[in-house]
């Protein structure tokens, strides 16, 4: 018989706990499953009553997401002859023809450009600042660190008024550069605090050894500290990317055309008589699934990231 432990829960407790947690998990995951499945439904299946769990999958939602369509008369439709591609065939069934690409591709690309651009900047600035805060005696260190954190407490709308005015006079409104700068500033607090935690964990002896061996501070920084901090930097980068990717308030206030990202755009996808739910769900799926994958990859560092390094497991 194995050794008895007072802290080990009994088998019955485990079953009970497991059942409840699994029940909660299933309920909580249902809306996400619904988003993904609605993307593959036809518009009539999407709004069927009772809600359809078994349905015939179609790519209509995805075709509608990426295209704009117009209705043409019966004769024109016949003159056009057989549809040449699979997506044209889907559209023709409803008596429509494809008029051109929709804006979704552009908006998604904007999200990628702004997300990655701000993440790179954030990591470069954040790593440098975090290293200095971790290793050197910076005057007013605690005050500066608190100041950096406090920038996160402001409601975005509260600073949006002057940023709106500032961007307008500098010609930065609705540009990629403006949004990259803005998102970098928003996420910098996260990046500095998280990275400082990760760099604090690297024993200072490694650098001291390198310095004694004749490395300069800079060499010690990028040849010793950076490789050691690689995991920390990677997970910080993913957090910055996710937060920039999800940001909505600044995006909806400061962009309208060229630099608009996907979050303000997806809810505006409309079809006949209201939102085109399969297309919205298709857009949401493409937008959310990468984040879900990253969340699963990051699960070990998740807690640390969302608490700015305050809780380390």
């Amino acid at each position, binding site marked *: 018989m194995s050794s008895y432990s*007072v*802290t080990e829960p009994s088998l019955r*407790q*485990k079953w009970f*706990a*497991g059942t*409840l*947690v699994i029940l909660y998990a299933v309920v*909580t*995951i249902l*809306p*996400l499953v*619904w988003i993904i499945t609605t993307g593959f439904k036809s518009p009539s299946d999407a*709004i069927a*009553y*009772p*809600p359809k769990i078994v349905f015939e999958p179609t790519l209509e939602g995805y075709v509608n997401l990426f295209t704009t369509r117009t209705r043409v008369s019966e004769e024109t439709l016949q003159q056009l002859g057989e549809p040449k591609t699979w997506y044209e065939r889907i559209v023709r069934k409803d008596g429509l023809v494809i008029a051109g690409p929709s804006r979704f591709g552009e908006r998604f690309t904007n999200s990628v450009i702004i997300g990655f651009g701000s993440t790179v900047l954030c990591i470069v*600035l954040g790593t*440098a*600042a975090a*290293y*200095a805060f971790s290793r*050197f*005696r*910076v005057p007013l260190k605690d005050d*500066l660190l608190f100041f950096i954190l406090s*920038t996160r*407490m*402001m*409601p*975005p*709308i509260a*600073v*949006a*008024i*002057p*940023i*709106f*005015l*500032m961007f307008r006079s500098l010609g930065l409104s609705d540009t990629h550069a403006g949004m990259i700068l803005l998102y970098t*500033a928003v996420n*910098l607090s996260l990046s500095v605090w998280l990275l400082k935690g990760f760099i604090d964990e690297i024993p200072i002896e490694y650098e001291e050894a390198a310095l004694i061996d*004749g*490395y300069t*501070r800079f060499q010690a920084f990028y040849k010793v500290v950076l490789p050691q901090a690689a995991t920390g930097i990677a997970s910080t980068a993913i957090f910055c990317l*996710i937060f920039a990717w*999800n940001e*909505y*308030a600044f995006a909806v*206030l400061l962009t309208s055309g060229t630099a608009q990202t996907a*979050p303000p755009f*997806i809810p505006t996808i409309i079809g006949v008589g209201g939102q085109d739910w399969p297309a919205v*769900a298709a*857009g949401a799926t493409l937008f959310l699934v990468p984040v879900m994958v990253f*969340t699963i990859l990051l699960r070990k560092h998740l*807690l640390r990231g*969302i*608490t700015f390094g305050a*809780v380390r*497991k």
Partner: protein
Amino acid sequence: MSDTPIDRIAQATPPAVARRITGLSDRSIAWLFVAPSIVLLLAVNIFPLIWTIRLSFTNFRVNRPNAEIEFIGLQNYRRILTDPDIWLTMQATAHFLIWTIVLQVLLGFSLAYLINKKFRGNDLWTTLIVLPMMLSPAVVGNFWTFLYQPQIGLFNYAVSFFTGADPSSFSMIANVNLAPWAIIIVDTWMWTPFVMLICLAGLRSIPDSIYEAAECDRASKWRQFWTITIPLVLPFLMLAVLFRGIENFKMFDLVVQLTGGGPGSVTELTSINLKREAFEKWRTGYASAYAVILFVTVFGLASIYVKALNKVKQR
């Protein structure tokens, strides 16, 4: 020249040290590394904040750039603090804040407590539960309006399945009494995992030896829960509440997409109200004063709370 290893090291050292001395001093490197971040934050956060404070004493309107800007002192502040509509907004925000925190703490702690029973596969289920937290609130909020639709919505269908109510008889979003709960439900769905993760870290930080000692003293499980588990998890729980409090005080994206502040203005939280004043009515000076009041409130409440948190931690 002697050729012991020590001498060789001594000979090799001088040029390297020289290189180090000609490099930058630690002090200048520190400044070089910190300065860009500070400059960016000053430009994008502090400068706008000062500008907001300045605007808050004026009657400036962005849509009338040629009108003369007058300094009107504290008039904006007086008007905001005596406006009954703004107090209604504050009440809606308080209702939202209190209920989301209560529900998330109860659910989050219970889940963490259950997961800590270490049943088989708990890691997998924890990861699944955490998923909603990291998703875009705007996109998810927009999709929830679909789930909330009378008749065809999945949420209404589920409610009618369990209670027998007609799924087309109620609309979570259009009903004045239900809309405040519609936003609380979605926020709780998204953020319970956050509280859960923090509580789980707290529970896992309690060493087994404390429970073993309590068992030796014949303390009941109930007693152990209230005198060991709860006090030791409390600092973690309070931290979770701090984060959720600040985040939900700023709440904008999720609620804008879900209800847009409606019906009427029952779910018009402060950020949405502020956006309306600033970017729809274009009362820039007035909205700036509003923003300053909000910021002072968050900052003040957060500092008081952090003091309390530190006291609990020290105990």
